[in-house]
């Protein structure tokens, strides 16, 4: 592992109509690192992810991916994968088309090579038998796994997960967690915004606790969950009745 961060954020500020959603965010993410962001609703976790994948314009600050500012348009190739809480699959495409159409439209791949990539990814998320189904015919957990496969198809350097299981029943969350675990095993760099504390603790190399638009505290899962230094982190765990 080199010491150059794959993703570097410097002094990021973002506000919505005067409301400061993010304040002076500093973050380095290293290759193969898995970071979970936890914190109360409205603390800016999702906004941070949306800024990293350029869905939200930022007020000030800089974001670098592999040393290049994400706002430099020289390499228009998308290297950041994003998985949404609401899946956002394309309902008019089949499962396989959801994965291969972006490859063909954006990546300019021909149908056969896109298909090969798509089928391999479906095997990876264990949904190869659903390739010709439409999204509405799948369960929530299956939809999210397709969404993960779709993001992976663009061969991102880093994957962002915005509360990937918040729209799912607990028993369906498990299969999505398993898919994320498989990605971790393959060495994917990931930032996961989640309310699932035990999953965050299990999978993460580092935990970030955010509140009111700032990173209050960060550290290893043991440190954050067992002996948090900040009062606000402790309060948060008390409020959500998190047991050590």
């Amino acid at each position: 592992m080199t010491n150059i961060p794959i993703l570097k954020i410097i002094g990021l500020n973002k506000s919505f109509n005067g409301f400061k959603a993010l304040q002076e965010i500093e973050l380095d993410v290293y290759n193969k690192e898995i970071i979970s962001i936890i914190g109360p609703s409205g603390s800016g976790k999702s906004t941070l992810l949306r800024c990293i994948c350029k869905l939200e314009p930022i007020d000030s600050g800089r974001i670098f991916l592999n040393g290049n500012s994400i706002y430099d348009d020289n390499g228009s190739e998308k290297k950041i994968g994003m998985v949404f809480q609401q899946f956002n699959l394309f309902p008019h495409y089949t499962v396989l088309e959801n994965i291969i159409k972006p490859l063909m439209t954006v990546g300019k791949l021909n149908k056969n090579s896109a298909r090969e990539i798509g089928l391999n990814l479906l095997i990876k998320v264990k949904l190869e038998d659903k390739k010709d189904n439409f999204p509405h015919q799948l369960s929530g957990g299956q939809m999210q796994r397709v969404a993960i496969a779709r993001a992976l198809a663009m061969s991102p350097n880093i994957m962002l997960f915005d509360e990937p299981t918040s729209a799912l029943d607990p028993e369906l969350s498990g299969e999505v967690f398993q898919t994320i675990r498989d990605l971790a095993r393959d060495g994917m760099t990931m930032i996961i915004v989640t309310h699932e504390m035990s999953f965050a603790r299990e999978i993460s190399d580092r935990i970030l606790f955010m509140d009111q638009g700032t990173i209050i505290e960060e550290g290893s899962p043991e440190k954050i969950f067992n002996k948090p230094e900040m009062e606000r982190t402790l309060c948060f765990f008390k409020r959500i009745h998190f047991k050590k």
Partner: protein
Amino acid sequence: MKFGIIADNWLFLLSAALLTIKITAVSFILALVIAFIVGTLRCEKLPGVVEKILSVYVEVFRGTPLLIQLFFIYYGLPSIGLSIPGFWAAIIGLALNSAAYMSEIVRASINSVPVGQKDASFVLGYNRFQSLVHIIYPQAVRVAVPTLMNSFSTLLKESSLVSILAITELTRIGNLIYTRTYRAFEIYLTLGVIYFIMTYAVSLISKKIEKRINKAYVC
């Protein structure tokens, strides 16, 4: 009852009905193009002037009678040096009028597509045009089709107004036969039946199309 006069004039009625279909189809296609451009533009953040122009267009054409619009285009515009032949004056009038309504249908349909679809396509690297064509339109069209087909029926019926521009479409031919025969009951009943057959055919076709495009959504 003397329906014999209908039989005597069936060839005129048929060719007039075909002209009605032609006028309707051409105006509808033109209206669709205008409606998609205007409706799509009105969903975007635009410079204030463009936004104003588009909203004035929509409001004016929705807020004045089609008959007046046709009179203005055919009889009014020549005064400022713009003479348009009757057929094209009819097409332009009908198209601009329908497009004003249809652009609102298009706009509402585009807005009905969840914003997450736009987000997802952006993150996957689609540019705005690709996102519109590949992701947003296919979903918006599904919502728009039933209402747009309704606009087609309305357009078909409103095309009877262009008879005043001396175009020998169905209504005008009916009027001409009437002035020769004074058989109002038979003639206007027949015209009504012909219009009804045409609009009913449209609604049957529309159901077929809806079924097709909903294929992806029903189990």
